């Protein structure tokens, strides 16, 4: 009995020793897989690539088809081609590329750079944040903006009116996109503790180029709202012209560069050339007919045709927009976007702001708003810049302009001249459907005829994208049902 009692007490130290090792559970919950803080140089390329994906991914499949550069051979592009789009489209772009990709990481970049006064980074981030927000509002109209990107504070951000996003609204605490860019430009003028280098996959850290890009973005945004808000647009354009700092050579284009390795390639390279969706896109017969002799213009052959599109077979292999018959076979003979758009092996670049765009914007502004500059000079500058960018020899450019006075010379009423400018801008934007979709919605040019088999909501070409279903599900601020793809945006006046 005595021995037993003694043994019982053996338990006491055993129990106590277990109770004592409280360190067993404490302080081991630090994530070894993911850092809680990172530096600006690893955020900048992330965010820049996000802006490029937003412009150049699924929205470019849509824009390229809707703007008739390409036709939809199958899958989603075939639906876009007959004007069908709904809230199930572009969810990934909204979530992963725009808000959850580029924008939130510009925001984190600003926060990280502000901690050590790296103004060069905050300046770039603010300009590109404005650019990326403009994609969102130009595609969807009224979108979360002033309360967006603040997940700790607003889990269901308010929707800001497109008008307020462009113009700002003090009473609602909304900063205009223009002011956001101006803030970024101020940062770029300020001293910075560090500057980006190779991780700036646009300009390699050249701050002067970023300033020019910032001012050029102001031109683009002013141009976008110029039909609705001519006064404001004029004022912004004059501000930029006075500053006299903008993209004025092709070498200064805001190009996001990609690589040729798998996992580094540009979106359109995979979507149009390389990966499993590539047989959903083929060159549009309509665009082919714009660039080469047609019944109405039997002499014209735009020298950019061979630069913009491939021709694996004896002639260009294309289909009409909305075509629903037997597709040309084999698909390896199809005409597709050329390396001008995608790079030889996917390097891109993705062109977000270009010299030709700047010239066409100023031509249009000079013509319509009366801003400084000669419309004809600027128009010719735009065509020439585009052709040079496409790799057309100077002599061939001159020959083309000489041989095609109907293209080269602005003639007729202002409206007719505007049509000429926007039509040429459309051709120049080959490969970037969103930009020319903006112009088409704004001006009605180029003149496009309905696709074969057009369906849509009411048979008309989409003028916006429907709100993302997932966003409607998560944020009661979104109207449900929301506006469909046939309802115009605020700046789309006619």
């Amino acid at each position, binding site marked *: 009995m005595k021995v037993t009692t003694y043994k*019982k007490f053996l*338990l006491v130290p*055993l129990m106590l020793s277990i109770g004592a090792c409280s360190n*067993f*559970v404490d302080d*081991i*919950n*630090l*994530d070894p*897989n993911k850092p*809680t803080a990172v530096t600006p140089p*690893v*955020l900048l*390329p*992330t965010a820049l*690539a*996000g802006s490029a*994906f937003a412009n150049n991914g699924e929205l470019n499949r849509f824009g390229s088809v809707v703007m008739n550069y390409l036709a939809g051979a199958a899958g989603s592009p075939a639906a876009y081609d007959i004007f069908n789009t709904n*809230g*199930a489209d572009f969810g*990934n772009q*909204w979530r*992963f*590329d725009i*808000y*959850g*990709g580029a*924008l*939130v*990481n510009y925001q984190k970049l600003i926060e990280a750079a502000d901690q050590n006064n790296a103004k060069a980074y905050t300046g770039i981030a603010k300009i590109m944040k404005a650019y990326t927000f403009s994609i969102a509002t130009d595609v969807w109209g009224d979108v979360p903006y002033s309360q967006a*990107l*603040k*997940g700790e504070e607003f*889990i269901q951000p308010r929707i800001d009116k497109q008008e307020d996003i462009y113009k700002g609204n003090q009473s609602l605490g909304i900063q205009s996109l223009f002011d956001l860019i101006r803030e970024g430009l101020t940062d770029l003028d300020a001293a910075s503790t560090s500057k980006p280098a190779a991780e700036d*996959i646009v300009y390699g850290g050249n701050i002067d180029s970023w300033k020019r890009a910032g001012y050029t973005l102001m031109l683009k945004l002013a141009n976008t709202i110029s039909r609705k808000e001519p006064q404001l647009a004029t004022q912004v354009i004059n501000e930029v012209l006075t500053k006299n700092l903008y993209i004025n050579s092709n070498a200064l284009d805001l190009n996001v*560069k990609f690589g040729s*390795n798998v*996992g580094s*390639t540009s*979106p359109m*390279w995979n979507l149009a050339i*390389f*990966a*499993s969706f590539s*047989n959903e896109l083929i060159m549009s017969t309509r665009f082919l007919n714009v660039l080469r002799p047609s019944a109405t213009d039997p002499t014209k052959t735009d020298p950019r045709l061979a630069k913009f599109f491939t021709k694996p077979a004896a002639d260009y292999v294309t289909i009409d927009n909305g075509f*629903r*018959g*037997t597709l040309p076979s*084999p*698909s390896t003979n199809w005409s597709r976007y050329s390396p001008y758009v995608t790079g030889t092996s996917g390097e891109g670049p993705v062109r977000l702001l270009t010299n030709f765009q700047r010239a066409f914007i100023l031509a249009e502004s000079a013509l319509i708003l009366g801003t400084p500059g000669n419309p004809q000079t600027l128009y010719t500058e735009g065509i020439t810049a585009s052709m040079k960018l496409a790799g057309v020899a100077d002599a061939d450019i001159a020959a083309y302009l000489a041989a095609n006075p109907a293209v080269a010379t602005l003639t007729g009423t202002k409206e007719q001249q505007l049509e000429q400018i926007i039509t040429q801008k459309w051709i120049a934007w080959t490969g970037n459907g969103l930009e020319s979709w903006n112009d088409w919605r704004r001006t009605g040019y180029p003149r496009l005829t309905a696709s074969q088999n057009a*369906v849509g909501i009411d048979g008309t070409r989409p003028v916006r994208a429907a*709100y*993302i*279903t997932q*966003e409607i*599900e998560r*944020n*009661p601020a979104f109207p449900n*049902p929301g506006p*469909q793809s046939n309802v115009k945006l605020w700046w789309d006046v006619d």
Partner: protein
Amino acid sequence: MRKRLAGFWLLCVLFALPALAQDRTVTGKVTSSDDGSTLPGVSIQLKGTSRGTTTDSDGNYSLTNVPADARLVFSFIGTATQEIVVGNQSTLNVQLKADASQLSEVVVTAQGIERDRRSLGYSTQDVRGDVLAQRSEPNVLNALQGKLAGVNITGASGAPGASTNINIRGITSFNGSNQPLIVVDGIIFSNDLNQTENTLFGSQPANRLADVNPESIESINVLKGPAAAVLYGSRASAGAIVITTKTGRNMKGKTEVTVNSSYNIQNVSGLAELQNDYGQGTQNNFVNTSANSWGPKFGGPLTQVVTAQGETVPYQAYPNNVKDFYRQGSILQNSFNIASGDERRNFILAVGNTLQKGVIPNTKFNRTNVQVGGESRLNNGIKINGTVTYVQTVQQGVPGGNGGSAFGQLTRIPRSYDLMGRPYQNALGRSIYYNSPTQNHPLWSAYNETLQGQVDRVFGNIQIGYDVTKWLNVSYRATADTYTDRRKFVAAIGAARTPAGELREDIFFRSELNGDLIITAQKDNLFLEGLNASLLLGNNINQRKTQNPTIISQQLTIPGFENISNGSVFSASTESSTMRRLMGYYGQLSLGYQNYLFLELTGRVDKSSTLPKANNTYFYPSAAVSFVPTDAFKLNSNVLSYAKVRASIARVGRDADPYLLNSVFEPASYGNNAASITFPISVGTTSLPGFRIDDRIGNSSLTPEFVRSYEFGLNLGLFRNRASIDLAYFDTRSTNQIFNVSVSNSTGYDTRTTNVGSMRNRGIELVLNTTPVRLESGFKWDLILNFTRIRNKVEEIAPGVTQSPITGNAFIGINPSIVLGQPYGVIVGTANVRSPQGEYLINPNTGQFVPGLAGQVIANPNPDWTAGLTNNFSYKGLSLSVLFDTRQGGDLYSFSAADLRSQGHLKVTGVDRDQPRILPGVIEVTNTDGTKTYRPNNIQISAQNYWAGLGGLASEAAVFDATVYRLREVALNYSLPGSLIGKTPFGAISVGVSGRNLFFYAPNFFMDPEVNTQGAGNIQGLDLNGAPNTRNYGVNLRFTF
């Protein structure tokens, strides 16, 4: 802690109160009436008192101080209780008769505690190993289908090793695992499902319970509610499955060798019926690259066509083109056991091997198990036991999922496409297919896009117990479960999703260690006669570690060279490790009064590493009561033999997953399988790292989540226990859920980790056991019915949040979600717009449905009720078991069905195809006064536009009622009579045939609705182009010597 220890010692003192003196003695031997063997451990009770004894290992007993008029009650597991008047006898030898329907029996509850079933205040259900063995089913969970009440078991598909989901009493956690805790011989056993690929596109890896060989199982006890499982801690809030493997304990000193062999064949089952009148193309035109069968009718002017490869082939139907993709599979299982010993010392050696060849080409599931175990009781009161098992499991599968996979293509095979009659690859090994090169021939995919895994797993336990005194036992149990799953994913050059090819070495390491110190004290007649008490105090330390390095090698160069050195881009490679620890203290006090009233109180305190320090310690209790009125009030009659009512209440706390407290950054990537980049990217000659903020917002003030459960139950034994009823009602509420609440994506994030919400489960479970026929000749018919009905409701999410997707992979627009007021896991998508009268609105311009309304609940995967009916017929050595089960209601969202229908392959789309059709619905007319009226849709559209318009992938038309009736299992066994084998060295020989999934009837679906592409987990009810089910049948042979 000090307080509890003090209480413990006080109890020790109470237990030590001396017993009364005695003067008279009865001795005897208890044997089995079946075979005359001695029965150790038989309980002998002096009736009307609490005194008694048990037989020793030789079946002998001795009871002192027995009055002459005393009655002795002999009871033993699985035998009929006998009551004998002692009279003047001093030697009393008793034979006990086996009684299968005996209701008083020992069951293994949480932490291996053995309890008399009648004392339990909560529901458990046990399954004997012999209803799992010899069933042509390598995965034990599948073998349990239809046999348990309150338990939902759904297989992913018939792909070899595909995971199986199990939930007990519904879903209780928004975010955490709702799989029950698995315990094998006291070892906390991982049933994890490790995914190499996005579950939308992946092949279907096994849940790790598949590493257990069903042949080695002695019994399974299912602890259904939190009250039953609370001693196991947090993870058992979803219930627990306690598996006990075979030992040598019951060998009665003999050595027995058991050999079991079975061979089964498998065939694909449940494929849709397809039309054979129209071929490849659209709008009545032949299109050689089309995935559709909307081409011209066979037998018309078009007799020959040119393929995409330029070959001229006949234009005709190939009725079996899809079916012939599948081959006949097989399952060969062999196992070998040596068991020896007795209650005191025994050992087991078990070896099992399973070789499964899947019905899908190039798939397999092979498993080898080796187990050794044993126990020894020393005379000094020390007991040592341990077991260790090594398993090697090899699984090879083929990716599925929408688009570029074998199964993504199998729903897109035009009826005129000679899928299996022509070569599927060229001399260079590239796929030949109607839409080459962007998609691949399914056979090419099966052989060139594969996932192979090899699991090497060791699990075991060591337990040392010591009887400090007669009433006090101290034991320590250490258990370990560790595995490494070495996966290799191969996507050859030309694969649809990765045209440049990709190789992955994906290694999953997991290790779990548990140490449990358990002190038990028990004392009969505490304070008053007939009050028996036992107290258990325990401490658990737990550590779980995982590591998952993945080397991803992209952009391959040399065709067919499947080594990562073949790649030139490795930037997508990743590494992930986790470690979590938990320390728990638990206690249980059980009181029993006169063997008819029982009370059990438990409590557990956990301290978890995954919660913030300030909130990481939490307590949770349970209480259960059970009352047997038939004994208390002597109500036993020939009609009512036994009745028990029970009730329990429990609360279980649950910690978080590791690393949820902070917002973090991670390597950035963009795009999907059609176009993507992954940082670091190489631009020019520079490699650039890129990080992004993780899409989840962390929360540094998390607190544990809780599940609170009430349960009421009734057990009845009727007609001398010829029939028994076990009825349970439960009501469970989960609160303070640790959930990644979805936030608007315009926040820049996807979710925010928060303690939110409330969810309720209410349900009824019924198990009915009867023996409708029992004849003198030995013929017996047993019938077991189980029924389950569970109602789940999400009562609260977060302020302002009415719906939130469940964590996991989903397509946008098809989100398995929690929605306020709806059951867990409903699928939120885009619903057709309806008129006020509930008819579909039609667009007058197109004749199609108007654009749908986002964010609507379009499917509910939860069944209304389920039931299983087992019939066992036995006559002498012959036994036949037939199991039917049914699932009533619940929806399946089927990509496969929508694909087949909108693309014109399905049989129904071939009917009256030349006739124009009108979609059901109405057209809205706005009158001049602004009011709206509705006129019937009269816009004719073609059959193709009709079936496509009815609904393709992301639409409510892809939702089907998953009601199904199934002949789940038939097993016929014949045990050779002793007279035949008496002179052979064999102890027993039995032969059998069995079949599984022999027949099903799904009234509202044209395929087998029991599929679940995403496998085990919280997302249910989706068929996203996964593998179909199989039908198995075969023979088995078992002999012992």
